[in-house]
């Protein structure tokens, strides 16, 4: 890795949109007109901002009920964790596990991983760069699957409408949960993985 010269050393930068290699002084890509920057601008700050916002919203998404189900007139609002516990108690441990992974494990992992990446990128740490790069790709991949919960709630609420016999309605928690997922995805998108490799010069 040390053999090949860095773009910055050569005074070059690549266009994010069309991939044209331009001189570093250019503000816009002469070919497609997009803004040029050697690294994503304010990548760390943006990523942090999104991550913190997601973290904040993660609290209400877990505290507030995500769905209200009523069977035969007896209504009950359940939070995510409550639902997991209910499923686990009723013996459906597989479903409980699925919900737990999609709704709790994945977002938590994302928070941890993103925080780790951000901290290490800021410190330009040389620790386990390759693994960090893999982690980044991993959280980009699993990012979408966190939406599973939102989809389930949306589907159930759309399908279970039997009036007196049973109804399901979404509750505020699911909105926050959706926002958390979106914000973590933004945070992951804002993060410039090339920052992992910066500071490699030393």
């Amino acid at each position: 890795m040390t053999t090949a010269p860095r773009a910055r050393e050569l005074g070059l930068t690549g266009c994010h949109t069309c991939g044209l290699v331009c001189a570093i002084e250019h503000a816009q890509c002469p070919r497609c007109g997009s803004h040029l920057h050697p690294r994503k601008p304010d990548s760390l700050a943006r990523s942090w901002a999104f991550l913190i916002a997601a973290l904040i919203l993660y609290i209400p998404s877990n505290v507030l009920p995500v769905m209200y189900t009523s069977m035969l007139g007896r209504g009950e609002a359940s939070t995510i964790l409550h639902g997991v516990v209910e499923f686990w108690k009723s013996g459906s441990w597989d479903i409980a596990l699925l919900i737990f992974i999609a709704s709790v494990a994945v977002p938590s992992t994302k928070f941890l991983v993103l925080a780790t990446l951000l901290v290490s990128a800021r410190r330009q740490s040389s620790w386990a760069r390759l693994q960090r790069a893999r982690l980044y790709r991993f959280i980009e991949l699993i990012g979408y699957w966190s939406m599973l919960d939102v989809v389930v709630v949306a589907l159930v609420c759309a399908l279970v409408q039997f009036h007196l016999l049973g109804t399901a309605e979404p509750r505020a928690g699911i909105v926050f949960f959706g926002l958390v997922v979106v914000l973590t995805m933004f945070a992951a998108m804002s993060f410039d993985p090339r920052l992992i490799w910066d500071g490699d010069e030393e």
Partner: protein
Amino acid sequence: MSDEDSTPPATPPPVSVTRRRRWSAGLIWLVPAVAALIGIGMVIHNWASEGPVIEISFITAEGLEAGKTQVKYKEVVIGLVDSIRLAGDNTHVVVRVNLSKDAAGFATADARYWVVRPRFGTSGVSGIGTLLSGAYIGADNGESHEVKKRFVGLERPPAVIHGSPGKRFSLAASDIGSLDVGSPVYYRRIQVGRLASYELDKDGRQMHVDIFVDAPYDRFVTVSSRFWNASGVDLNLDASGLKLNTQSLATVVAGGIAFQTPPGPRDATLAAEGAQFTLFDDIQTAFAPPDGEPDYMQMRFEQSLRGLSVGSQVDFRGIIVGKVVSIQLDYDVDKQGFPLIVGVVIYPQRFGRAGEKIAQLAPMGNDENMRLAHLIEPMVARGLRAQARTGNLLTGQLYIALDFLPNAPKVAFDPAARPVELPTTPGSFDRLQEQMTGLVNKIDRIPLEAIGKRLDSTIAQLDKILRQVNEATLPQFNATLAGAQGTFGSAQKAIATDAPLQQNLAQTLAEMQRAARSLRVLTDYLGIHPESLLRGKPADPAPRAAPEQDVKGNKP
């Protein structure tokens, strides 16, 4: 490379871009700021909407669930059961409820809570909706602003929810009868209200019954309205026949209260909220004129008063003027007797005009008893006596009759005696009883046994005679009858149309007829020829020979 790509206009954009970037770099922190704001906002909202926490105690937590059971007012959720625990002494349960902020008015002194669950009672079925949804806690608040955190839950739903249009009235009743909370109130047999609550007087002598009359019927309650207990069946037997009166089938089972303004010109002023009325036992007493303050009197009876009971009527010439309130046994040391002391109350107002007129005659005194004594004294002198009379021959019920008995023996009346004592005289039934006793004694004296013995021997003799008749007389009598029958047979033969006797008789009669004719001819002849008696028959001329022949022939 930079030489080739460098372009004069490229220089300004980086500056602007950089500037914009710095600005947008700050802007990105708006995202977590907004998120934090939302979070803080929710916390504040939550905190602000956190209503009071109250504790309600119930006998049982049946149907209640922590975290699920709601508290509802008019079917609007105003709180949620937070926890349920047993009270320290295990006699009841304490339900902790988180009320919502806008329901803070329900944490006041006169709020009421009760559990709504399915109930099946005589007055109807309620809470059916909770069969499926589970029980909830019903709430009702009042006017009070005094904050209260601990409540004792009602065991049954209140009949009247605060703020319902209508009026509340208070009835004083001697007993509750078959009434209960929720019992209907009827006006002309329409249900117009409910019994809201009842409680016993502090000294336990009266019931205070609270009723609620819904709008718009509350305007039928006037100050002169009368309330009566319409429970059960009212069976009336009077001169016009048998009458069965009920308000509705429901009242037969569950009881009810009816009210009406008595007919006639009445004060039609609307009764105010909370007005006091009396709850009468039935419509008759309800419509009867008010009794006013009763006067107490005593009577001393020497004879048994079996059939007289507390509550028996006191009657004056057919008008019930009072009732018996006490019957007590006394011991008379002088006479060694057991007189009965009967206490009665007399309602002077029931005497109507008579009472008013007499009251005017009597000297007005401060002492009520003195006035009464002065009223009664001259009447006693004129023969006013109390009598225990039989009201019902079948059941032997007695009543006290006040009447003037002019030939009653004079008695001393002590106007100073307290309470006023009215002299008595044995009742008509007592006299009848004496007479009956005399009669029975007389019957007793009849020597029934001797009569019986004699009757017995007489019957034995009669039996002997009859046997004789049977054995000796009857066979002979039979033979006689047979002989008689034979005789009648021959007689019948003798008088038959074809009997020889009959024919001979006919011939004889024809002969007799002929003889009579000859006699007539002879007399005719003698009439014409009387001389023939002496001279004999002259010779007839030739032409008339034939008749002469006839005469001649007949003559011998």
